[in-house]
């Protein structure tokens, strides 16, 4: 029988964490290499940054602000050193982390005589102190309603739609039933399967918003003059057996399970309540996962058909497949496999129960391959040109 709790980190503000990271967060492109140098010299620190920290306009600017503040105050972050070019850039992000009760300090190039070495040394020392403090925190029993799952698929093949995604859907149902939160994104992969989401929308307005988001995404492709076939589905998907976006979407949307859709989120937007949500976002894993991270998800499930090593830096990401050959080949990439469901030797409910146990284990501290191999990042999506 699955546990009703996981072992996690209580927070002063907001959702509990499944990890307790010290983050070196660069909010400008100028200081991102510095963030990596600082984290490299520290045990367990994570460097995140952006190659584009300035020159955002309009919607891009709003997304950037929202996501940077969200990363700095994420449920899985216990402490953050915010570094950037100037105080205008770092102050709002420092304030957000402070309001969320995290250990935080902000350092900018302007205040260090524009000397990156001096800045790095100070960041190094501050982060070391944070890591020491955080290492004293103990995991506590946390109810499953504190879990917020980001649900992703990548390099899918037909086994994804047949088994892996429906399996994720069953566990999404279980977490939502326990009072938790789950979300899917990848709007292009709603095309052809919209009714599977709109039929479950909590209100007609939400159904309309979902339909409109899918049409906007389709219009982007049409206006750009691209054929979806060989873009999404990609060459990889096509070689694996997926023929059209409709076929891929019908398999992809299965990740969302069967519970009502509570609303449509903008990129990186935090949901107003628990339950199942859908996010209007790009379909590519780096952008897509960070949308979920910024929305406050504290764990991710990421299905694959042929294999995909990429994970989120802040959401421990369970990689799973039902493809027999992939499961055998990628033992240091996949955290959960269900090839026996594909071949008919295991039933879906038994596998879903196993996956739920894995979710609780990962949330409670069992490391994923992505974490062990440092195969992770956060990438804030861009929507327009820089000034």
């Amino acid at each position: 029988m699955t546990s009703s709790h996981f072992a996690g980190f209580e927070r002063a503000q907001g959702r509990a964490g499944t990890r307790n990271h010290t983050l070196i967060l660069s909010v400008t492109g100028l200081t991102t290499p510095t963030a990596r140098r600082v984290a490299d010299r520290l045990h367990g620190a994570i460097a995140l940054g952006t190659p584009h920290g300035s020159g955002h306009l309009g919607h891009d600017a709003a997304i950037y602000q929202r996501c940077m503040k969200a990363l700095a105050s994420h449920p899985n972050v216990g402490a953050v050193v915010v570094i950037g070019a100037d105080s205008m850039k770092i102050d709002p992000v420092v304030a957000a982390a402070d309001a969320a009760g995290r250990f935080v300090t902000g350092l900018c190039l302007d205040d260090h005589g524009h000397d990156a070495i001096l800045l790095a040394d100070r960041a190094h020392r501050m982060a070391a102190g944070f890591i020491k403090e955080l290492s004293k925190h103990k995991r506590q029993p946390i109810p499953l309603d504190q879990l917020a799952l980001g649900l992703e698929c990548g390099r899918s093949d037909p086994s994804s739609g047949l088994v892996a995604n429906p399996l994720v859907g069953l566990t999404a149902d279980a977490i939502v039933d326990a009072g938790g939160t789950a979300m899917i994104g990848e709007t292009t992969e709603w095309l052809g399967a919209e009714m599977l989401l709109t039929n479950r929308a909590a209100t007609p307005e939400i159904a309309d918003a979902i339909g409109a988001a899918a049409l906007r995404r389709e219009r982007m492709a049409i206006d750009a003059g691209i054929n979806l076939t060989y873009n999404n589905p990609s060459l990889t998907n096509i070689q694996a057996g997926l023929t059209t976006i409709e076929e891929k979407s019908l398999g992809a949307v299965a990740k969302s399970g069967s519970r009502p859709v509570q609303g449509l989120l903008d990129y990186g937007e935090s949901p107003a309540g628990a339950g199942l949500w859908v996010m209007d976002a790009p379909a590519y894993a780096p952008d897509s996962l960070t949308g979920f991270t910024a929305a406050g998800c504290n764990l991710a499930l990421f299905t694959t058909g042929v294999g995909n090593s990429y994970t989120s830096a802040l959401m421990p990401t369970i990689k799973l497949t039902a493809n027999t050959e992939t499961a055998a080949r990628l033992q240091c990439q996949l955290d959960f496999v269900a090839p026996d469901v594909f071949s008919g030797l295991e039933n879906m409910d038994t596998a879903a129960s196993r996956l739920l146990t894995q979710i609780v284990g990962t949330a409670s501290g069992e490391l994923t391959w992505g974490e062990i191999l440092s195969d992770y990042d956060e990438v804030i999506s861009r929507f327009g040109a820089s000034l």
Partner: protein
Amino acid sequence: MKDRLDAHILSEADNVATVLRAVKAGETLVISNRLIQVMEDIPLCHKLALGELVAGSAIVKYGAVIGNAKRLISTGEHVHVHNVESRRGKKK
């Protein structure tokens, strides 16, 4: 292992099946109590036609339309990008 299915159909309305192993031209598969003659080699997880599909007709998988036949497709043929067209992402 002899009871293991060769192909999977997700819905009764489907007119394609997904092969659960690579199949070769000339094989006869048992799918939903029907005998289907495989017309050409089909890779693992790709689709084969359960019946004749005229040009322009709907390809149905998961009980939903996943595209249209670009040309006549015979029973047992490989169903994929060479003979199926998506209905989405098209200028109206």
